[in-house]
């Protein structure tokens, strides 16, 4: 059992690392009250997935995927360029999400004067109770 586990972990440590990061990110997203921390958690979660993708393309004795004769002659193989292509796209998507999220947080801060989620919800509820109708 222990041998199996160590073999499994040592041969796929890339995957275990990304599991760990994913769980850290996921925890931050749900458990943290601060909106900025939530966004940080989301970024960690996304980055963990990116790491998983990139590690799918790794080849032992692999070199950067740029055509060069001498590297091949020395016995190196190219790493898989496809995950790089996909992740370049996905990173941009993550950047875009983060930008929108940050601008939302700025607006929320202007509106309610706080970036704690519970306080914002409390403020909304108080406003609804005052006006006896939804605060829109």
């Amino acid at each position, binding site marked *: 059992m222990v041998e199996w586990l160590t073999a*499994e972990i040592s*041969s*796929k*440590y*890339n*995957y*275990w690392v990304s*599991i760990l990061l*994913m*769980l850290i990110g*996921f*925890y931050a997203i*749900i*458990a943290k009250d601060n909106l900025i921390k939530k966004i940080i958690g989301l970024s960690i979660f996304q980055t963990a997935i990116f790491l998983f993708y990139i*590690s*799918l*393309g*790794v*080849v*032992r004795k*692999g070199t950067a*995927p*740029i*055509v*060069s004769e001498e590297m091949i002659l020395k016995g190196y*193989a*190219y790493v*898989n*360029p*496809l*995950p*790089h*292509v*996909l992740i*370049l*796209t996905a990173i*941009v*998507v993550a*950047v*875009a*999400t983060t*930008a*929108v999220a940050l*601008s*939302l947080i*700025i*607006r929320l801060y202007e509106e309610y004067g706080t970036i704690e989620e519970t306080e914002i919800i409390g403020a909304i509820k108080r406003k609804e109770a005052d006006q006896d109708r939804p605060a829109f």
Partner: protein
Amino acid sequence: MKGHKAITLILMILLCGVLVYVAEDIPDFGDPKAPAIKYVKLFHLEAGASENALNQGRIPETISIALKERKFPLPSRAEKTPGAENDWDVFIPKEEAYYPKEEKFYRIKKEGERLHLYRYAFVVRWIEKGFKETGAPNMVTHGLADYRGYDTLGETVVIFTAGVSVILLLRRRSRL
């Protein structure tokens, strides 16, 4: 607040459980023959007399039928892989004007008395022919801008969307 913590714990355990459950079947790190890098296994057949046919460059009937059943493109000829003893590269005929030549598509490996049929991952073709076809030595760039150029168009649209979103949310006293 206590309920919230319990939900957090349950969700974490669920995610962790699924991810650990998967770990066994994930390909090894750095394996040069992993499906994503080299080839993916389709099925295997009894070798029988087909080895001779393969050596002569023909595709045996059994393999064609098996491929047809599984809706795969049909091959035209086989060729011995350089540097391997009992392996053959199988080509598919040209079907489209953009491919003046035929394409390396399958690989047959003999192990014991069985023929194992593999299909090359499409990255193999990028690595082998990308430079010739697109004239860009950096595979990531020619993959990004040419083979999967539509994705990159989408990516550019995403960043543009983010820019306009921030304009909508934050910019005041502007004409936009």
